[in-house]
């Protein structure tokens, strides 16, 4: 008698276990599931096998080959398309010229197949379906038979109301070759959906034979884990390759070249595959460990299923989880029950993988991470959600609607019940989608939302500095990567979130300690239609309208499809300016321009400024914070030149006070300010530090090294729209072209470089820099800045990138280059020293 093993399924419900191998090859007690089926068939003398393959057939063929090693003869049949179960068997018709048995390749059973065959023969059946009773028949096909065991009715996956029996179809059939007359060729045809109902209709000899014994369809990861539990508890007998080792009170099976360290605690049934090491002090209970694995001391495995080449480091705790091939689990990592880690994944130390979390193949979980949701497509799970004031991630991959809704719950929980938050977004559809999800989360925590819809960040900040809201959130597309969404969090004063504020939300998010509002008390959404008018009013108050009007300036502005294009041209027109707007329209699908397009856009802008003989050109970045200035000659200003120019223009116009600039800004700013009775406040480079400095009443302007300016008389936050108006006003006050003003600015050579450096070495590099600076004049506001008279060099570790910045300024280009080279070499040398 022959048997057909159905091994063509995709195993979609078994993902991520089946991401790299077909479902019948998933190991059960260190052997493919299908091997257990082959063993069962052999036990009943069925050695002539037809394997029906479809998905990843070569993996199965490479393992079983012709079957000679297993004492069976295998014929492979691989249909070219999905033909359904019966349709696929039809493809193997030429090999099935006698009575044959059909069985699935992903079953775990110890049924007595001989009894089924005998029944079939005794009843002269055309088809016999093997039946069994289960507690929960809902997910299977229920079968009803009469007294003679003839089938009278089928019910496919019934609801509880339809359940009239607990007897289900097990997927094991005995068939006569005549059955092929009922299966059409080349058509998708299913046994339970099409063939058996057809036989029933035609009143053919269709029987159902109930069998007692163990039967489990290994259809999903829970079922896979439970199948192991059943085997380890002895509920079903399967062959285990690893021989038993004598040990009192323990069922220990150990393969070849296995090392069990002294002091290893083993309890229950434990299987350890060939060449694996369990080091002393590890505790293993009711678990299966594959081949070539290392379990370090202190690791504790309970009901774990570990595949091959897995490295579990010290004190890791794994409870009822599946770890697939080539995975390393960091020291002291905790995995709660139901977890699955797929192939080729590295989990950093002290990570926490919460219950039922599934991690897809090739992931990197950073040390100290808490993983609360399934990690499917993104490459890494960050240990902290916040990067400074924002959370960013790949749209709909890392930042999914469900993730963002949870984030909204966490944010809402951190705020007082009944309070209001201001929420806005850029023009992109993805920002709108994620913002809507986020709002649901906030409302669920009983916090109200004032939705100002599509708005630029400076306008949102401007409203926030007034009363009424306890915080603000802005959704936007990333300039660096259009596939990434950035969620910017602002406090009640419109300032960027501090790290402690972010940590507070992260704590709530990871603990899922959400405040859920009573069903009568969720937050509400309102709109603030007057925000634009409010901003305009303030804008006009903040500039010298008379002066701008009288100058009748002509300017070119590249709006980069930002929301600023909706408001700034009108404001400037009202101030008597002639505005030539480029890329003013909003394109929801396209979103903003990317950073790669910037150089080209700037060149075009410069050309247009010269052609139209405009007074200036401005490139406004999509976040509406950063501006690049082009003067009337078409010269594109470097950020440090723009900063020096604006300081000069402010002083020329009579502004006196303090100028807040980052440590990395050129020292000529001090020189210009001091000559005019003003001062300079050096701040850290991060935006929040600069904006906090700008709140101080003495500060008249804050300027970053990235073309961002804040004028506290209007608002203490960076605002590209206001920067443009202010530049027009100040250049009007100066009464000379911008290029002439730049000529008056004392010049120095300013160079910047960066050295790649892994996170772990950044601290070491800064320690070396600090030792190196002991006998020099150094400041430590942000990084370490060493002065050599008027020249200086700054070594600054990047906050978010694995990079160390080196900045040098000197009177002449040669000295600046020498300083930059010297310190970049030093950093490189320190990196090597730290590696030793």
């Amino acid at each position, binding site marked *: 008698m022959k048997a057909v093993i159905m091994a063509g399924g995709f195993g979609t419900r078994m993902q991520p276990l089946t991401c790299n191998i077909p479902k019948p090859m998933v190991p059960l007690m260190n052997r493919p599931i299908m091997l257990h089926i082959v063993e069962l068939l052999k036990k009943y003398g069925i050695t002539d096998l037809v394997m029906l393959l479809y998905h990843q057939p070569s993996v199965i063929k490479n393992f079983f080959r012709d079957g000679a090693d297993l004492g069976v003869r295998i014929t492979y049949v691989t249909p070219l398309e999905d033909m359904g179960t019966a349709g696929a068997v039809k493809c193997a018709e030429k090999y099935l010229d006698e009575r044959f048995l059909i069985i699935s390749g992903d079953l775990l059973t110890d049924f007595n197949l001989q009894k089924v065959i005998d029944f079939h023969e005794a009843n002269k059946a055309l088809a016999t379906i093997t039946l069994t009773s289960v507690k929960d028949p809902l997910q299977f096909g229920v079968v009803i038979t009469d007294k003679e065991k003839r089938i009278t009715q089928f019910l496919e996956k019934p609801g509880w109301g339809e359940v009239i029996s607990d007897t289900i179809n097990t997927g094991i059939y005995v068939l006569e070759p005549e059955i092929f007359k009922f299966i059409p060729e080349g058509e998708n045809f299913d046994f339970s959906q099409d063939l058996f109902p057809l036989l029933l209709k035609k009143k053919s000899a269709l029987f159902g034979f109930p069998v007692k014994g163990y039967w489990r369809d290994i259809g999903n990861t829970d079922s896979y884990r439970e199948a192991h539990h059943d085997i380890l508890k002895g509920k079903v007998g399967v062959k285990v390759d690893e021989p038993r080792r004598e040990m009192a009170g323990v069922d220990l099976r150990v393969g070849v070249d296995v090392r069990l360290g002294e002091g290893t605690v083993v309890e229950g049934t434990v299987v350890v595959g060939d060449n694996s090491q369990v080091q002393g002090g590890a505790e293993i209970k009711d678990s299966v460990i594959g081949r070539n694995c290392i379990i370090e001391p202190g690791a504790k495995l309970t009901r774990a299923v570990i595949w091959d080449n897995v490295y579990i480091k010290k004190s890791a705790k794994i409870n009822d989880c599946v770890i697939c091939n080539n995975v390393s689990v960091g020291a002291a990592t905790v995995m709660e029950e139901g977890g699955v880690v797929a192939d080729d994944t590295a989990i950093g130390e002290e990570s926490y993988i919460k219950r039922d979390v599934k991690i897809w193949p090739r992931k990197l979980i950073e040390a100290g991470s808490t993983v609360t949701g399934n990690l499917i497509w993104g490459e890494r799970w960050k240990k902290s959600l916040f990067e400074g004031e924002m959370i960013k991630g790949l749209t709909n991959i890392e930042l999914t609607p469900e993730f963002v809704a949870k984030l909204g719950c966490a944010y809402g929980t951190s705020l007082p019940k009944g309070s209001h938050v201001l929420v806005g977004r850029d023009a992109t559809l993805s920002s709108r989608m994620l913002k809507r999800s986020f709002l649901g989360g906030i409302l669920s925590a009983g916090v109200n939302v004032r939705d100002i819809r599509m708005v630029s960040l400076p306008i949102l900040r401007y409203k926030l500095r007034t*009363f009424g809201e306890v915080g603000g959130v802005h959704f936007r597309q990333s300039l660096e990567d259009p596939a990434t969404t950035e969620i910017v969090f602002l406090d009640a004063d419109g300032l960027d979130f501090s790290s402690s504020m972010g940590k507070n939300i992260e704590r709530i998010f990871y603990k899922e300690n959400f405040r859920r509002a009573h069903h009568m008390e969720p937050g509400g959404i309102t709109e603030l239609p*007057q925000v634009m008018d409010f901003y305009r009013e303030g804008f006009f108050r903040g500039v010298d309208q008379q002066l701008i009007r009288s100058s009748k300036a002509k300017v070119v502005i590249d709006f980069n499809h930002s929301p600023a294009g909706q408001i700034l041209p009108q404001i400037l027109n009202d101030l008597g300016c002639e505005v030539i707007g480029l890329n003013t329209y909003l394109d929801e699908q396209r979103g903003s321009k990317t950073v790669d397009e910037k150089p080209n856009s700037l060149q075009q802008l410069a050309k247009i400024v010269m052609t139209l003989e405009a007074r200036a050109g401005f490139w406004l970045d999509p976040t509406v914070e950063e501006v690049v200035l082009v003067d009337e000659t078409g010269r594109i200003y470097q950020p440090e030149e723009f900063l020096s120019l604006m300081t000069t223009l402010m002083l020329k116009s009579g502004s006196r006070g303090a100028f807040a600039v980052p440590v990395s800004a050129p020292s000529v700013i001090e020189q210009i300010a001091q000559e005019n009775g003003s001062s300079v406040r050096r701040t850290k480079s991060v935006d929040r530090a600069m904006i906090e400095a*700008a709140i101080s009443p003495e500060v008249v302007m804050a300027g970053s090294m990235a073309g961002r300016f804040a004028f506290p008389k209007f608002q203490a936050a960076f605002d590209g729209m206001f920067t443009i108006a202010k530049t027009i006003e100040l250049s009007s006050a100066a009464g000379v072209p911008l290029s002439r003003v730049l000529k008056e600015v004392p010049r120095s050579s300013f160079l910047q470089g960066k050295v790649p450096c892994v996170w772990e070495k950044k601290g070491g590099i800064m320690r070396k820099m600090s030792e190196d600076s002991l006998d020099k004049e150094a400041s430590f506001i942000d990084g370490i800045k060493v002065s050599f008279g008027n020249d200086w060099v700054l070594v600054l570790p990047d906050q978010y990138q694995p990079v160390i910045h080196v900045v040098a300024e000197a009177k002449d280009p040669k000295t600046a280059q020498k300083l930059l080279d010297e310190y970049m070499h030093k950093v490189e040398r320190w990196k090597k020293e730290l590696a030793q």
Partner: protein
Amino acid sequence: MAKLLVVDDEANIRLLYAQELSDEGYQVVTAGSALEAVEKLESESFDLAVIDIKLKNESGLELLQRIVKERHTIPVILCTAFSCYKDDFSAWLADGYVVKSSDLQELKDEISRVLAKRQRGAYV
């Protein structure tokens, strides 16, 4: 000691606020009209102003506009019997908004919040 300017057209309210806020440790100067407030703002420096919106024949919102324009470093709290002005965007220029109540705690809390916010600006 922070110096506050309280602008209200009702003498008894001025008296009450001056008394209560002095007890809190503030130096309090009062004005009965917008005109008087402007005069005081021109002659003295203040850390914060508390302004009523309805001032006999004048508008507290206009006074607010003037302070924001001419002395934008002085934070303003609107203190009014009406909550409807919260939705008026000319009121948004204020740093705080308190609906008048016999319990002055909310006003006191708002004053300390706004002053703390101003103080934080002295960072660097």
